[in-house]
């Protein structure tokens, strides 16, 4: 599904440049649930941004579902993001003046799905994250966990190939974190490929595979026995 070969990325900070990714090689099969771990500054977010086509690597190859991702125009990148990727952010990034339903329907709008179908589908996904009754509520009327579930529903609504989650539990308490992870695991159970960036050990162990990054290189890549989040959820 995802294939990365010898990826390099550096940022220019004034006169000196900061080498963030120093040759990353990584593959993820369909249906995998991978945790990318590392301390801050290890390059994990940069990697995720490149995977999410929000940023571009200086060198190296990146293939997503057989499509080489290289030298994309902004428009092309936007279309690929819409088609291939679902994003979940640490700070949810819901549009605050749109209701939960409208937020979920937004990627479908950019897919040019007709309005009626869009709303039906959005409602369906809200139901899957257990927030059907909250469809008309604004993000400000939802709790943190609910917001993240809406964000996950939004990421899933476009039926992406890969779900990219950047610290999805970073702004949540542990109980809510587990609820969110439970949801992510369930989505993964259905065969979706998911990448989770996190620095929390317990969250990482709820994935099937952990990739450790340090100073821009992968230092460890291991399969783990998945801890089911449902064990912690009543």
């Amino acid at each position, binding site marked *: 599904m995802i294939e990365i070969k010898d990826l390099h990325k550096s940022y220019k900070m004034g006169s000196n440049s900061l080498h963030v990714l120093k040759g990353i090689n990584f593959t993820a099969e369909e249906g995998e649930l991978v945790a990318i771990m590392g301390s801050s500054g290890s390059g994990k977010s940069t990697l995720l*941004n490149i995977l*999410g086509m*929000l*940023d571009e690597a200086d060198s190296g190859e990146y293939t997503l579902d057989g499509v080489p991702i290289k030298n994309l125009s*902004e*428009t092309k990148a*936007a*279309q690929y*993001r*819409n*088609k291939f990727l679902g*994003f979940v*952010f*640490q*700070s949810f*990034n*819901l*549009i*605050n*003046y*749109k209701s939960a339903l*409208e937020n979920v329907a*937004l*990627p479908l*709008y*950019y*897919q040019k799905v007709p*309005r009626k179908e869009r709303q039906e589908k959005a409602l369906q996904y809200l139901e899957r994250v257990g927030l059907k009754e909250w469809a008309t509520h604004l993000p400000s009327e939802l709790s943190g966990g609910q917001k993240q579930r809406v964000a996950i529903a*939004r990421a899933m609504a*476009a039926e992406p190939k890969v779900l990219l989650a950047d610290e999805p539990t970073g702004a949540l308490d542990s109980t809510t974190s587990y609820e969110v992870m439970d949801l992510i695991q369930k989505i993964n159970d259905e065969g979706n490929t998911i990448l989770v960036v996190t620095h929390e050990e317990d969250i990482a162990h709820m994935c099937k595979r952990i990739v450790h990054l340090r100073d821009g290189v992968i230092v460890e890549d291991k399969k783990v026995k998945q801890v089911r989040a449902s064990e912690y959820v009543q």
Partner: protein
Amino acid sequence: MRLLFDRNTWQEIFGSIRKNKIRTIITIIGVLWGIFVYIAMSGAAKGMDNGFEKSFETVAMNSLFAWAQSTSKPYSGYKTGRQLQLKLGDATVLQNRIPELQYIAPRNVKGTFGSAPASITRGSKSGNYPVYGDFPVFTKIATKKIYDGGRFVNDDDIEQARKVCIIGERTQKEMFEEDEDPIGGYIRIDGIYFQVVGVHKFVQNAPFDSDSDIYIPFTTYRRLYNSGENVGWFSMAAFDDADVIQVEEDVKSVLKNIHRVDPTDERAFGTFNLGEVFSKIMGFSKGLTFISLIVGIATILAGIIGIGAILLISVKERTKELGVRRALGATPGEVRTLIILECLFLTLIAGIMGIILGALTLSIVNNATQGIDFPYTNPTVPIPLVMGAFALMLILGILIGLIPAQRAVSIRPIDALREE
């Protein structure tokens, strides 16, 4: 183009506008004020224009007057300071020598210009009113509105020197009972019985006009006051396409020639030219229209620039939202269109509201000034001007929208989404 007619696009725009209420209201007020000022000012200018035109409609625009004064230069054996007197025959000479003259009406008056007014009596009622000796042609130069059932002096009156008169509204009020029909009634002018054949509605054509003026046939006047061939002044009208200033000069030089006055004597004859006055006033109101156009457009411009500035700030505020949209698959083109259409939509809504408000104000002012002696009639803004303002707003709305739109597009989604 497809985006323009897509219901979804508009839903996005309405959503964004509805949810940013304060921003929307502030921006709308900016342009609304601009277009309101534009409509109200140019409408008022047009109203003034119409008002002036209406004030002058009772008199020929190209009319002029000539009267005799005294010479200021000796000439051809005559000494300086000779009092000049216009004669009835002058009219024929003027008419013959100046082809641009369309009408010429010799007039005489008793009661203005220092002479004592005639004493009018009817039974026990009496009063003093000015009496004019007139030809029928006078009505071609200055419209005299005669009330129903009446008439002005006609050719037979002149020929037979009939003792008929046209009285003013005030004279009617003071000489006749309220329910009495003055037409056919008799009044005595300086002791002589005259039959009333008409009542004229008072219209101020000249500064000395009043609502008590009595008009009698020129020939009757001549007999009554023994004025012989003497004429008080000439009222004249030039043809529409004639240069009134030139005609005025011609009239003066012809009169000087007839009365043997030094051609360089500037004081011998007085003339007054309504066309010149009229064109000055019209020039004033044209200037007013022009200024209101400039001010209005400038205000609209300021309003639209305000919209641009506020949208620019709003784009900065919405950096994150726009970043999210980009991450979810909005292309730069879609983001740009969203911002431009928002700008355009705000501009147009504000514009339409401004036009309606401006038109409302104009009609209120119009109603308020109705019946007041103020040159203000039918204040309208010509459709092409409104359309022009609208087109201007449309174009400027798009152009100004381009600035925040470009700003929105230049934000990289990764920067927008980066945690603070």
